């Protein structure tokens, strides 16, 4: 039997994740760091189904070939590249690193990361906005890593960002969605902006919760790389992200304070005994 509801959901699932002028069928973006080996990294990326992966630029130790091996595996993955500006503490540092990344990786995409505090790796909102304004003018497609502050998100959109990446919680903590209220407010305030939860996701259930809220994608690294079996965990995250997206498209029921029977009351047996 033809199901009219399936048409809408299937269409919604096909729409994919829009990042500036490009669309990706996978809504899961994964990092390439912290893996036991480049080979496990490559297998985990493939298992995740991700079509965009993050990477960085660093000083190379000429006596250590590992960076070169990782780069070879990344190139062979066929994924779009999202270089980051991890480790930068000022707009100027981030701009320089973004320009270097564009030449190295031949992409305008940049994950803008300007850290304001080393204790929790919290983004510096002021320097992030400053860098975003300049990078957008230079033709970059900026994906800013930011906090869940509504006004900061507004400023980044005004700077020209078409994608926002608020944190779930600090990088590497695995604490999930620290401030669901703030995240929900950002989702509702900017209904047409592509929103990706970046950082802090430790479990597939947390990724699914974000997707159920209507977020457009998830970016994570540590939860997969540090799993006992990264390849299996990558599959788990892929399913969670898809499941959360389907649930969002299907429409969640309203929660309520009091119990409500799901089985019909009419015709309840043994009624007359009461």
């Amino acid at each position, binding site marked *: 039997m033809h199901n009219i509801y399936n048409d809408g959901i299937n269409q919604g699932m096909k729409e994919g994740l829009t990042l500036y002028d490009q669309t990706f069928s996978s809504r899961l973006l994964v990092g390439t760091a*912290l893996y036991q080996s480049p080979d496990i990294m490559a297998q985990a990326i493939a298992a995740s189904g991700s079509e965009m992966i993050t990477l960085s630029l*660093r*000083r*190379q130790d000429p006596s250590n070939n590992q960076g070169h091996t990782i780069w070879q595996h990344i190139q062979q993955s066929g994924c779009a590249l999202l270089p980051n500006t991890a480790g930068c503490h000022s707009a100027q540092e981030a701009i320089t690193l973004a*320009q270097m990344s564009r030449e190295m990786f031949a992409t305008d995409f940049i994950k803008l990361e300007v850290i304001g505090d080393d204790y929790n790796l919290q983004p510096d909102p002021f320097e992030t906005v400053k860098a975003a304004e300049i990078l957008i003018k230079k033709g970059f497609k900026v994906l800013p890593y930011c906090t869940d502050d509504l006004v900061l998100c507004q400023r980044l959109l005004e700077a020209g960002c078409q994608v926002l990446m608020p944190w779930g919680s600090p990088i590497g903590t695995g604490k999930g969605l620290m401030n669901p209220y703030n995240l929900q407010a950002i989702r509702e305030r900017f209904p047409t902006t592509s929103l990706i939860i970046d950082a802090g996701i430790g479990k597939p259930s947390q990724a699914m919760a974000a997707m159920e809220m209507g977020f457009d994608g998830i970016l994570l690294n540590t939860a997969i790389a540090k799993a006992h079996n990264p390849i299996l965990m990558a599959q788990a995250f892929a399913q969670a992200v898809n499941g959360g997206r389907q649930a969002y498209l299907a429409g969640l029921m309203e929660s309520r304070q009091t119990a409500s029977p799901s089985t019909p009351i009419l015709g309840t047996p043994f009624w007359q005994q009461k």
Partner: protein
Amino acid sequence: MTQISIRINGEDITVSAQSSISQALILSPAVGDEKSFVIALNQNFIPRSQYDCTLLKAGDDIELLSPMAGG
């Protein structure tokens, strides 16, 4: 010929005055066999097309970076 001291990835190296970035890279152990790298000079990005024509001064600081894993 006058020699000047510059830094590449935090290591001091000595090059001839008026050396270009390309000439300095030949002398740098930081480069090794690495082909995939990009450069900043005194924290400003220098496109590859300008390595030959950018001349170095004493105290210049070159950052030479290559692809690496990242989150």
